[in-house]
């Protein structure tokens, strides 16, 4: 059972992380293409059209694998997380279906037109197609983050003992879930940063090589300005997301910050520490006074609830959940004749999820021992160590990219070709957006543990009844196929990026031009 859950989680993490190599680049590049093509339509200068076409080719190479790896995400809930799909499909399926109808159709219908309709439509019509691709990809992010936001902060739902699942009671509170909205903006702007870093660093490479200078400098400038706006937005929305985590997911917050015991206001912020989950202490910690309350509550009066106190509080919910679950199980034995029990169960269902936490230790929750309850309570907070560091890596890389964009935007028109150090630092930061996106998703998903739906459904209860062999087989299959696809993708991407706009087959961008 434990192996099964671990393998299922591993497969989800691997396939999601592969997918998220391609997605943020699509999100950002799509808008950069709109900007470049907008410049073309506004000024009529052919070079902007060439820029749109060249970066568009790289966009296409990336997009193909984004689509492919996205398919898995749509179906993996059913294949590997069947009980999850049963338990929350009434709510969770809706944003996914609307995503298909509203976003994927739009994005995918017009992406083909972006590549292949240049000769058939007017300039403005083509710009419209490009814009629709960008809008479609953003809508898609909106709905997937509405879905994910609901997993973090499950609003607008009630438990139905008759169908043995959560059911949607208010669509609008799912859509306008503040956690989802903040996450959506944080994620798409992180995508814009990714697209900007991509264009910025490849352009920096051309500038360093003195290759297609005019083309590269214009691309560099657009990427720098767009990236600067986007990175400010990422940081702003990241801060907003942090405020929501403070309110909605205190266990995630305490783990990220490595706070074992509730702090008095104003709380300090831990700059460097080594949280040790086995002893529930930090082996060392360097704190900045006041900063914790300032960052997390935007004031000096906010406190941070500690892991030990959260576990104590959750213990009471587990004991209560145990009682609720026992009632529910009694009802489920014969639903037809026990219908009279339904109203009582409905009224006392807030802690059923906490009761389910006991199921990892015993199949009969009614006989769970106090030791099991203690252990379940300890499991309600994820191990702080990996969260502490991935969160800080994300923040560090985010700020580094902001600085890179700020300097790049400032020097874009001031002899950028001679700013060798700046251009080289851009190359160094090339992997930064991907690493920080991965860190961000790790914090979001690992930080939600032990839950798939926060406070409602434990991860160890969510998986399909498969065998470990099934998942080892599929995991190898996915890794093999994805790696082959990734290798082909990287091969084409490097080949095209190295050749530069010469791939467009126009005489102004030929190999001889490299020295100019």
């Amino acid at each position, binding site marked *: 059972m434990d192996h099964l859950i671990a393998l299922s989680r591993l497969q989800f993490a691997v396939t999601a992380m592969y997918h998220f190599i391609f997605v943020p680049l699509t999100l950002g590049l799509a808008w950069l293409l709109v900007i470049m093509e907008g410049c073309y339509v506004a000024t009529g200068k052919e070079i902007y059209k060439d820029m749109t076409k060249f970066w568009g080719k790289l966009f*296409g*190479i990336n*997009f*193909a*694998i984004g689509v*492919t790896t*996205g*398919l898995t995400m*749509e*179906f993996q809930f*059913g*294949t*590997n997380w*069947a*009980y999850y*799909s*049963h338990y929350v499909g*009434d709510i969770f*399926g*809706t944003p*996914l*279906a*609307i995503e*298909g*109808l509203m976003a*994927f*159709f*739009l994005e*995918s*219908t*017009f992406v*083909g*037109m972006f*590549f*292949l*309709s*240049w*000769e058939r439509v007017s300039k403005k019509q083509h710009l419209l197609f490009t814009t629709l691709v960008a809008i479609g990809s953003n809508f898609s992010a909106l709905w997937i983050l509405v879905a994910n936001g609901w997993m973090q902060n499950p609003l607008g739902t009630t438990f139905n003992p008759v*169908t*043995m*699942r959560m*059911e949607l*009671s208010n669509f609008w509170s799912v859509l306008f879930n503040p956690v989802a909205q903040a996450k959506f903006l944080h994620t798409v702007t992180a995508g814009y940063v990714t697209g900007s870093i991509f264009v910025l660093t490849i352009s920096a490479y051309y500038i360093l090589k003195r290759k297609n200078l005019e083309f590269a400098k214009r691309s560099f400038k657009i990427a720098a300005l767009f990236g600067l706006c986007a990175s400010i937005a990422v940081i702003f929305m990241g801060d907003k997301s942090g405020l929501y985590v403070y309110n909605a997911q205190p266990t995630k917050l305490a783990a990220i910050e490595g706070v074992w015991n509730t702090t008095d206001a104003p709380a300090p912020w831990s700059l460097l520490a080594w949280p040790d989950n086995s002893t529930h202490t930090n082996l060392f910690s360097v704190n900045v006074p006041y900063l914790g309350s300032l960052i997390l509550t935007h004031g000096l009066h906010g406190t941070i609830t500690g892991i030990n106190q959260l576990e104590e509080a959750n213990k009471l919910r587990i004991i209560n959940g145990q009682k609720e679950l026992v009632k529910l*199980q009694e009802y*489920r*034995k014969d*639903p*037809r004749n026990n219908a009279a029990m339904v109203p009582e169960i409905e009224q006392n269902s807030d802690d059923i999820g906490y009761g389910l936490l006991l199921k990892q230790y015993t199949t009969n929750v009614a006989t769970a021992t106090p030791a099991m309850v203690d252990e379940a309570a300890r499991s309600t907070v994820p191990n702080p160590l990996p969260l502490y560091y991935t969160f800080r890596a994300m923040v560090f890389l985010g700020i580094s990219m902001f600085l890179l964009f700020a300097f790049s935007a400032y020097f874009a028109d001031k002899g950028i070709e001679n700013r060798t150090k700046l251009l080289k630092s851009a190359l160094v930061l090339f992997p930064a957006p991907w690493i920080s996106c991965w860190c961000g998703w790790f914090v979001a998903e690992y930080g939600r543990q032990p839950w798939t739906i926060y406070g409602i459904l434990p991860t160890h209860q969510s998986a*399909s*009844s*498969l*065998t470990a062999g*099934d998942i080892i*087989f*599929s995991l190898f*299959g996915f890794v093999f196929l994805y790696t082959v*696809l990734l290798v*082909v993708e990287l091969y*084409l991407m490097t*080949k095209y990026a190295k050749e530069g706009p010469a791939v467009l087959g126009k005489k102004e961008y030929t190999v001889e031009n490299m020295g100019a």
Partner: protein
Amino acid sequence: MNYEVLRFIWWVLVGVLLIGFAIMDGHDMGVGTLSPFVGKTDLERRAAINSVAPHWDGNQVWFITAGGAVFAAWPLVYAASFSMLYIAILAVLWTIFLRAPAFEYRAKIDNPKWKSTWDWVLFVGSAVPPILFGVAFGNLFLGIPFHYDDTMRLVSDASSPVAGFLALLSPFSILCGLVAFCMITAHGGIYLTLRTEGEMQERARKYAAVFSLLTIVLFAIGGVFIAHMNGYVATQLDPNGASDPMLKTVSLIHGGWLTNYEHYPVTLLIPVVAFGALFLSAMTNFALKKSGLAFIFSGIGIAGIILTAGVSLFPFVLPSSSSPVSSLTMWDATSSEYTLAAMLIAAVIFTPIVLTYTSWVYKIMRGKLTTAKIKENSQAYY
């Protein structure tokens, strides 16, 4: 609008999505399957591929949306079908994966080996999924071995995953796979006839004719199988009741999958229309050389085949062979009334918009794709 009506509407809508998927993604899968045979030279293959290259991705969204809609409207079906058919679903995904890079990467390097490799990758990605979908559909009639425990957790009754997968390959389900493959390939062949010229067009026309006729014959054989098979009949099933499949009773009857046609003879029109449309599609394309009309008939034929299967199974959507009472029907495996209503509003708003812009882009890209055109303006095509 009450729960019963909403549930029926969603049965229709899931059907519409499956039919939309078969017609839209079907024709580009058919093109992918036939391209290496119809196209003898690189230019000819490019003509074939470019006839669907701007559209394949939009068409594939029918598949994704069908998956999403089943998740939202029939979460029990989504959970049961995908987890209980684990290896088969992986096979579908892994072969469909091949399509995106094949379409998008083939033209990225001008090297005959590179291109012919992608041609065969596209062939696999186009020919295998319809077979697998057909096999899966066939297994709905035979039932899949699963049951629910008292927490509504799905339990597989297959002796092992591999045995479970092999058990899916019965003569009837393979026949269904071939029906799906033939109808999709014929459909793609007709589309190719419509979009190409000259010798290549004639080759496409011949392939389309062969696969149209095969579809008719195999579909008829399928009917014979169904008549001699055990079908499920549900009783004590409340169309307005809670989505708990365990509340009904189910019995197995010889020829049970034909009871709907006996009770409502008007539904017999559906298979009749399917046969008629398939026949007309073969005739109009091959004898009258009107491939536009043939494409429409072929679409009607595909819709007819899928509807015939849907009506036979009705109200079942995912029968269980090991625990008939765990079988899922369109009455007791749905989302809540609220979710079905919310989803219906979304579908009513967005489906017409999708259909409008889809027809718009097809209109922009219409016209014959000749090898001369592609040669002349090579950069504008894949």
